[in-house]
């Protein structure tokens, strides 16, 4: 007979009881969706009429707007999930309400489902209605397209899933607690616990491991912690799935599908957990802090440990130098504060602050173990190097090499975005059987053992130091990352070998992986001028291929001996609906012979160096504090004698360009004044090569420089 009690009737009754949520949501969503859409379309249409916006751009903007680009919806989804959860299951906090609901002849599973489903409908009905109204608005305004409809549909799916995730975690907090305040705190703990734990582990690893690279792109188990927080799960999936460990350049549809599946799995798992908890939850839990007595010590240990570890690292990082004294102080303070806070929450009695010392001891033990684990590198993290036989390939990313290169990727059909430099290099560089790379890594490991880092060295000592990230791709599918410090001079011979590797270049220079038809414009800059290259498609294609070939042939020695005299910029084709275009900027060396020849064939004369005959004078100034303190700046000296000009020019290279391996003497400032091809006076900054300062300069200005 019980089954005859209508589920739908009870659900509708429950919705009616909470109709105020419905009313508020309808009002807010109408303003945020159809009304805001009308305003947006009208404003954009006005821009289209004025000519300041293309129709395609309007459509692209609209797709984003009805999709995930309306930030207000996110806020509404979050708030409505919390309100629906607490209004639907808040009765579990009141004994008199529990007495009513749990004495009626309705099974608890059914009771749970009624509350659960009505909460969803309270959000879903107004959201769907407003989404339909938004589509109708777009139709009436004549801007509806299949893509807009598709974006709207996806938005409904994703927002419903995001709602369910926040809703389930809020209900989970209610299930585990017996008081409203504790429930709200519990919900915040669900949001923040695992991201905090993640940040704390990262913090300790950065502190104690010299070779810690971070936890990039789902490569490590620790990243999965972020799936356990609705906030980071939302953020990770909403921002392109970077948290999912998925390749960012995965096709959008595939990425969306995987994201949808992940979200559905999380929703289903949390739902099953909620059902189980509801069945297990005793009615007498109402009014207690925690609904399940057995969970109290476990939750306390987890919370105290994390708060203590977090407090330790926060206090440790308060001073400039990492201080273990402050770390210990932070740990002790965090331990005491967390213990007191949690016990007061549990017992609602200030006299119970130091109750349950056993759990306090366990939490303190965990904290000590974790701290010692990092402090003494018990897993030998810093000295770890995989067996070479287990390595499929290796990729390295040295900070100071080619640091001015731009890395882009196509985010979707409407936009490009920056690629993380290390990420690009790791994904596109697969070095196999290159012994030199292990020699470099070995140097990095040794430097790590000797605590050679930027923090531990003076600026002068660290002048030749560079950070180097390494990605080991193992045969078993695992990927391991490490960060090392290397002295560039010490690895010079190995870099010579690396730059001869085609695989290295593919990771180092995105340009070599591009196709000619990716670009629609090329610009070249030399020491005198900028040229927008006007050539046929075929000429441009040849120029692009010539530069790609030059880049592949560029040796480390070329870079050590030369600095770029100019740069070449390849502008990527405009995307549909996108106003702006990205460019890939690359250096031009004298050794880029194929490029220079192709430019010459196309009628462009590129100046690879200043002609001595064009130089009017050279101003040499010692870069000393005295020089800067002298307001008249009369400590420098001008040279116009052709012999001295030649000697200075032979000993110097262009400054303020990416000089990769070229060593320069930074004690001197050189400004060369010259006449360009238009007979205008111009100037260019130069620097002496290391140890190549001419004798006559030393005689004239050496005393000041030495000061």
């Amino acid at each position, binding site marked *: 007979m019980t089954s005859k009690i209508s589920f739908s009737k009870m659900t509708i*009754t429950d919705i009616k009881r909470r109709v105020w949520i419905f009313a508020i949501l309808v009002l807010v969503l109408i303003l945020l969706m159809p009304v805001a859409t009308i305003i947006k379309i009208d404003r954009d249409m006005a821009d289209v009429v004025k000519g300041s916006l293309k129709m395609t751009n309007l459509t692209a903007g609209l797709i984003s707007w009805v999709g995930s680009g309306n930030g207000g919806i996110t806020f509404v989804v979050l708030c409505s999930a919390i309100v629906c959860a607490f209004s639907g299951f808040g009765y579990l906090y009141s004994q008199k309400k529990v007495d009513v609901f749990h004495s009626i002849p309705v099974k608890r599973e059914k009771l749970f489902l009624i509350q659960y489903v009505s909460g969803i409908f309270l959000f879903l009905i107004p959201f769907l209605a407003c989404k339909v109204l938004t589509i109708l608005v777009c139709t009436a305004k004549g801007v509806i397209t299949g893509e807009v409809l598709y974006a709207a549909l996806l938005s409904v799916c994703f927002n419903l899933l995001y709602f369910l995730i926040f809703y389930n975690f809020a209900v989970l907090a209610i299930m585990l607690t017996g008081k409203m305040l504790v429930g709200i705190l519990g919900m915040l703990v669900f949001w923040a616990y695992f991201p905090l734990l993640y940040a704390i582990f990262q913090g300790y690893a950065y502190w104690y491991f010299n070779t810690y690279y971070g936890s990039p792109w789902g490569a490590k188990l620790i990243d999965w912690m972020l799936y356990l927080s609705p906030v980071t799960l939302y953020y990770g999936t909403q921002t392109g799935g970077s948290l999912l460990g998925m390749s960012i350049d995965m096709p959008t549809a595939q990425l969306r599908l995987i994201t949808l599946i992940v979200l559905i799995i999380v929703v289903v798992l949390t739902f099953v957990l909620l059902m189980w908890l509801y069945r297990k939850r005793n009615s007498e839990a109402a009014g207690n802090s925690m609904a399940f007595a057995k969970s109290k010590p476990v939750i306390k240990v987890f919370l105290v440990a994390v708060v203590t570890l977090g407090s330790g690292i926060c206090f440790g990082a308060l001073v400039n130098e990492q201080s273990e004294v402050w770390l210990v102080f932070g740990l002790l303070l965090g331990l005491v504060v967390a213990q007191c806070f949690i016990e007061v929450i549990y017992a609602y009695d200030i006299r119970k602050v130091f109750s349950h010392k056993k759990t306090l001891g366990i939490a303190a033990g965990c904290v000590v173990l974790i701290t010692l684990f990092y402090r003494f590198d018990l897993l030998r993290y810093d000295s770890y190097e995989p067996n070479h036989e287990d390595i499929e390939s290796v990729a390295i990313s040295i900070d100071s090499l080619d640091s001015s290169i731009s890395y882009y990727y196509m985010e979707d059909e409407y936009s490009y975005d920056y690629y993380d430099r290390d990420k690009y290099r790791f994904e596109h560089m697969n070095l196999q059987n290159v012994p030199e790379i292990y020699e470099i890594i070995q140097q990095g490991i040794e430097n790590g053992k000797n605590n050679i880092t930027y923090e531990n060295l003076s600026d002068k000592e660290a002048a030749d130091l560079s950070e180097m990230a390494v990605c080991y791709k193992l045969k078993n599918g695992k990927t391991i990352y490490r960060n090392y410090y290397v002295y560039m001079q010490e690895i010079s011979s190995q870099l010579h070998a690396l730059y001869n590797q085609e695989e290295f270049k593919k990771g180092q220079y995105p340009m070599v992986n591009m196709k000619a038809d990716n670009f629609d414009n090329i610009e070249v800059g030399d020491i005198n001028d900028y040229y927008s290259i006007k050539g046929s498609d075929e000429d441009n294609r040849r120029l692009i291929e010539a530069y790609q070939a030059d880049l592949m042939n560029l040796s480390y020695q070329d870079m050590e001996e030369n600095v770029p005299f100019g740069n070449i910029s390849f502008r990527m084709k405009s995307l549909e609906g996108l106003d702006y275009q990205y460019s890939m900027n690359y250096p031009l060396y004298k050794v880029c012979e194929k490029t220079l020849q192709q430019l010459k064939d196309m009628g462009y004369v590129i100046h690879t160096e200043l002609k001595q005959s064009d130089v009017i004078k050279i101003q040499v100034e010692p870069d000393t504090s005295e020089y800067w303190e002298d307001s008249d700046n009369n400590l420098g000296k001008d040279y116009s004698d052709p012999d001295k000009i030649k000697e200075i020019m032979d000993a110097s290279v262009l400054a303020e360009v990416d000089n990769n391996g070229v060593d320069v003497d930074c004690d001197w400032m050189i400004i060369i004044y010259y006449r360009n091809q238009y007979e205008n006076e111009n100037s260019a900054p130069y620097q002496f090569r290391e140890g190549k300062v001419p004798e006559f300069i030393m005689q004239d200005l050496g005393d000041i420089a030495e000061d």
Partner: protein
Amino acid sequence: MIEVSKVRKVFDDIEAVQNISAAIQEGAVFGLVGTNGAGKSTFLRMLAGVLKPDEGTIILDGEEVFENGKAKEKLFFIPDEQYFFPNASAKDMMDYYAMVYREFDKDKFKEYMGKFNLSMERKIHTFSKGMKRQVSVLLGICANTKYLFCDETFDGLDPVMRQAVKSIFVAEMMNRDFTPVIASHNLRELEDICDHVGLLHQGGVLFSRDLEDIKTGVHKIQCVLPDTADEEQLMKELEVLQCTRSGSLLTLTARGTKMEITQRIEQRNPIFWEVLPLTLEEIFISETEVAGYDIKNLVF
């Protein structure tokens, strides 16, 4: 019939109900009395299937109550603190319970509401405490369940209303299979309505008997006997629960029928004697004293 067997319920480190066994017969009003904190509410909440006993069983017409819809549709629980939905009127609550209890009699509810001069449309939160009590009792009665569990339900009702509710109970019992179980700390409230009484104290059952048996089995005797030897002999022959003396007047509370007690007294040639009936209140004071409990803890 409700059979309670060795039921125990512990909240944290407090044993609210300890090893209770009782049988509640059909067609009689069962009164559950006891001190504050005796475990009456906990016991009723277990009977209603709200709480799950830690140990023991509660069988209602052959069915376990907890999480059993079949058993629960035979009972209606009126807790000490009633809950009505926010902004609900009596009509809203009637509709809700009519949805939950398929035997709910809407017409009867409307009729009773009219008789009690309560508005169907007015928001319940605007009602007085007593009016809310009346609404919840009427909802419980009109649910037409076999068992009605009332926790301190008469508390807050004025004497007229209390009498009216009692009359409804009687009428319902005459018309259908109806067994109210009423928990109260107020013995006077139960005295004229209960057929059977269970006394709870500190989580346990002191006794559970028919009210008639209790009343006919305990009497108060006032007598003046010729000498102390007769007094001592009488005390030995009777099962005395309480004894006080005022001058030569001896006042005894003793178990036994009126006839048995009369015979014993007459054998001692009393100068004066009379046997008086006891109120339920006096019986319980005597019983709890015998059981070694401090009567000052009982609130009347």
